[in-house]
């Protein structure tokens, strides 16, 4: 399994972590630390003018993590581009997790607006990591448009339902020339491990960690699961069989003629 590289930048950890929905900044910072991640997503929000010291992320040591601002809230390409540009100034990075989610119930991405925004952002010098439905053709087009990764969903954001799009993600992986990061819906370590085992290059997890009773512990759990799956792929798995394959040698003497 090759080193993970996105836009020529190496990542030792295949786990990316979102910073939303934590109960406190310090819990968040500890969980991020425990996850071993090297890239965290952030969102943009209006400064509260009456209480301008927003310290949500102040507990994070930004020298240790690449920031990946998202465009959450954008409902079309224009809004996404607008957010991306503000994010670039606010976070001082030209990387952006492109999210265009017009539907409030399932927060699913719009393929057409996402491609349109991706093309524009690439042209403006952004490193674009688009959140998409598990659509192999769209993934290919985004790659051709110059995206740095594709980030197909396992299940709706925050649903914790696991790899419901397994077949389609398998095809995306098979055909991709850029890293495939499974995003959204991974609710348990086994889900993250499964994604890596079938060939995903990385996973992005937020809700499953943030809403656990002990987010720091859960972050550590996802860290281990991702490492487990990575090792499993390196180890060269033996494959499935329909019939049993004995793991003990045959104990022939029991059944010989003359045996009691």
């Amino acid at each position, binding site marked *: 399994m090759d080193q993970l590289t996105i836009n020529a930048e190496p990542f030792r950890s295949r786990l990316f972590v*979102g*910073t*939303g*929905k*934590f109960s406190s900044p310090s819990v*968040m910072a500890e969980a991020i630390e425990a996850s071993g991640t090297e890239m965290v*997503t*952030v*969102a*943009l*929000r*209006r*400064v*509260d*003018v009456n209480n*301008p*010291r*927003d310290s*949500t*992320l102040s507990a994070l040591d930004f020298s240790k993590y690449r*920031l990946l*601002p*998202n465009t*959450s809230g954008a409902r079309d390409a224009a809004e996404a581009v*607008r957010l991306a*540009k*503000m*994010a*670039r*100034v*606010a*976070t001082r990075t030209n990387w952006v997790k492109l999210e265009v989610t017009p539907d409030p119930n399932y927060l699913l991405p719009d393929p057409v607006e996402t491609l349109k925004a991706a093309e524009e952002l690439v042209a403006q010098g952004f490193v674009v990591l688009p959140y998409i439905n598990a659509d192999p053709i769209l993934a290919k087009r985004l790659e051709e448009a110059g995206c740095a990764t594709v980030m197909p969903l396992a299940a709706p*954001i*925050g649903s914790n339902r696991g790899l419901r799009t397994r077949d389609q993600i398998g095809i995306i992986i098979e055909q991709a020339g850029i890293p495939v990061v499974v995003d959204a819906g991974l609710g348990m370590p086994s889900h993250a491990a499964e994604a890596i085992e079938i060939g995903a290059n990385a996973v*992005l997890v*937020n*809700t499953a960690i*943030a809403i656990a009773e002990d987010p720091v512990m859960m972050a550590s759990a996802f860290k281990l699961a991702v490492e487990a799956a990575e090792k499993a792929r390196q180890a060269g798995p033996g494959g499935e069989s329909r019939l049993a394959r004995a793991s003990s040698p045959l104990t022939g003497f029991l059944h010989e003629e003359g045996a009691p």
Partner: protein
Amino acid sequence: MEIKLNGETREVDAETTIARLLEQLGIQPNNLAVEHNGEFLEEDALEHTMVRAGDRLEVVRFVGGG
């Protein structure tokens, strides 16, 4: 004079730059991005862009998100 700041109407002194306005409001200028009347401002524009009556300002910062 009145401006609209992050959706709320607010009285501010006339003849201020955006940078100074933020300072007055106690908003630290780092990790911010600003839209002025719907136009995105590059960072260095904050120092020399003047706020005028009726202007709309959006001031955003990054926070926790997934």
